[in-house]
């Protein structure tokens, strides 16, 4: 017996992969053309580099007793902390003798972890609710839309300030709370609007006629179509999360051992911000890092916007 084979017909996954690669190439081209997107991406890559370099430096040239971001202390310079930049400490030391560059690089990891986790939670919730609201409409829709209004009304930082009196906020809890809260916020309105444009497409009707369950249609047809927009809003949400963490840390309201916001907080509570021109290395590097990372993710978001939204393109 001759084994049955599809001679000459490419397997489906290969065709899919090729289509996928083609659309990726096209979208990458559009993203590249936006010019601001690649700029943001370059900055993000720079921070990734910092993040990766830290453990390597700690294992090779940096003595952990001196350079540990939290418990390090340079004994050689006792009495001179906070010391200005020098060869041993390229960005100087903080009021309790820790190396600023090491703190800066070490914190990058937690900023990424926080930003990405929180944004991921937001987007998953937002996408799901947006799709559900668009698909079912009615009471479900009204409920979530009013909820979104409410969440948008709340100044985030103010809310987290109270929340912190109820639960201690460490990095993961903060990411979770921010992620969930903004997941019910404005993003649902935007994604719902997008899902509504998908819902009227004929293939949705076809899937319904074919007996697809609501869940199946949402998962297989609606969600994939609003994914690009979700991905875009994820970038904006990373900006929001990093920013919020920095502000709360700066006010000393979080239970985090080290972050860019805490670095400035340390400088402030030790009284070094008053004469800021003099001790610039205490606030300028972490301040610039927070700003740059937020800036970078926002730019990437806007760059993706030109990919997702053809009306913003040049032609």
């Amino acid at each position: 017996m001759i084994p049955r084979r599809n001679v000459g017909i490419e397997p489906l996954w290969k065709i899919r992969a090729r289509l996928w690669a083609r659309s990726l190439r096209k979208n990458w081209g559009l993203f590249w053309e936006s010019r601001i997107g690649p700029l943001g991406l370059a900055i993000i890559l720079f921070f990734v580099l910092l993040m990766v370099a830290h453990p390597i430096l700690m294992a090779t040239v940096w003595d952990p007793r001196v350079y540990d971001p939290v418990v390090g202390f340079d004994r050689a310079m006792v009495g001179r902390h906070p010391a200005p930049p020098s060869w041993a400490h390229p960005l100087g030391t903080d009021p309790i003798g820790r190396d600023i560059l090491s703190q800066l690089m070490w914190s990058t990891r937690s900023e990424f972890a926080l930003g990405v986790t929180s944004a991921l939670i937001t987007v998953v919730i937002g996408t799901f609710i947006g799709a559900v609201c668009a698909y079912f409409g009615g009471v479900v829709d009204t409920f979530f839309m009013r909820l979104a209004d409410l969440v948008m009304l709340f100044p985030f930082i103010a809310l987290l300030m109270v929340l912190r009196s109820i639960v201690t906020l460490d990095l993961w809890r903060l990411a979770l709370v921010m992620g969930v809260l903004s997941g019910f916020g404005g993003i649902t309105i935007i994604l719902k609007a997008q899902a509504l444009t998908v819902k009227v497409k004929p293939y949705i009707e076809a899937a319904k006629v074919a007996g697809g369950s609501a869940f199946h249609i949402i998962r297989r047809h609606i969600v994939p179509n609003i994914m690009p927009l979700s991905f875009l809003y994820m970038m904006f949400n990373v900006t929001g999360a990093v920013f919020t963490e920095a502000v709360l840390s700066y006010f000393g309201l979080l239970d985090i051992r080290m972050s860019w916001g805490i670095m400035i907080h340390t400088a402030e509570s030790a009284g070094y911000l008053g004469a800021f021109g003099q001790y610039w290395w205490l606030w300028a590097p972490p301040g610039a890092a927070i700003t740059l990372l937020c800036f970078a993710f926002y730019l990437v978001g806007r760059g993706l916007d030109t990919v997702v939204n053809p009306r913003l393109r040049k032609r």
Partner: protein
Amino acid sequence: MLRYIGWRLAQISVTFFLFLTVVFLLFQAMPGDYTKQFIMNPRIPPEARRALQERLGLTGSVWDQYLHYVRNVFTGNLGISFQYYPREVWDVIKERLPRTAVLFLVADLLAFGVGYPLGKYIAWKRGKLSDYAVTVTGVLFYTIFTPLLALILLFVFSNVLGWFRSGGFLTPSVWLRPPVDPQVVFLLLAATIGGILALGGGIFFLTKRIGHPRPRNWARRSLILLLLACAALGWYRSGIGTYAWDIVWHMFLPVLAVTLISFGGTMLLMRDSMLEVIREDYITTAKAKGLPDKVVRDKHAARTALLPTITNFTIGLGFIVSGGIVTETMFSWKGMGLTYLEAVLQQDFPLAMGCLIFTGILVLLLHLVVDVLYAFLDPRISY
């Protein structure tokens, strides 16, 4: 139009109730009731706590407490601040709310005044170097870490230029023996700003009836100049001008900071919405009519692009309020934001709750104003 506004008002009221409820639940979730601070404060006798508990209805069931709470909110009976004991919370808020309102109003108007024309300009020059440069600058200010911005502003304006010596609301040395209360001066200032805005709006709508654009614009410009001149003269002749000027002087940096962090949002919204409008057929038609490029841009493209910009503006409000809290703190501008932060840090929960509620009211009022404005600007809303 009235029906539209009424409908929005109803929606906003519902949102407000939900908001009140959430605030209530939030403070319910705290360990102990929020008068517990009164036990620890030696300045406050224990009977006072009991009295306050009674007054705020904190003794009954949760549902009773909720009803009591809602009634209290509407009667302004928010309890006593523990930081400022024995001042009433409402009394503190009454003093601080106008400061925040004025700060935001002025800064947002300025931000709009900068963001709107810039957005329209860069959209028109899309893809040119100026587009990229201004977009990147806008995003930078939009995402800048607010304390960093404040530090930089302080550094530039106090250290380098030496214009301002301190933050705060006023310079004590100027106010040694003031003929009037600073609060009164401030409220008068606020009233002046409000009056100018209201009359300006009035002038705008009254002159709308003048059909021909040239005399219309002329009338508008001269009437508004007259208005501003009257206001300036009034303050100059009032005898308390120096005091008012001191306050205005102190407002400068916070207003600048809030303006800088919020103009980017308006600008980017305007740019994107312009880019969409530019593709519309009526823009081609306007060009085909032989209208000058500037008229097509300003009268046809920008005016229509303004509508989505206004609608989206409210989405960013929470962000601006957050930025406001930080700004007020950095410049020690004693508005709602700073008061709220202090209250939270000192666990002065009655005051914190009051601040949260009134911030919510402020934001909702802004929503309403924006809605009314929108209804005026979009002829398609006629209901």
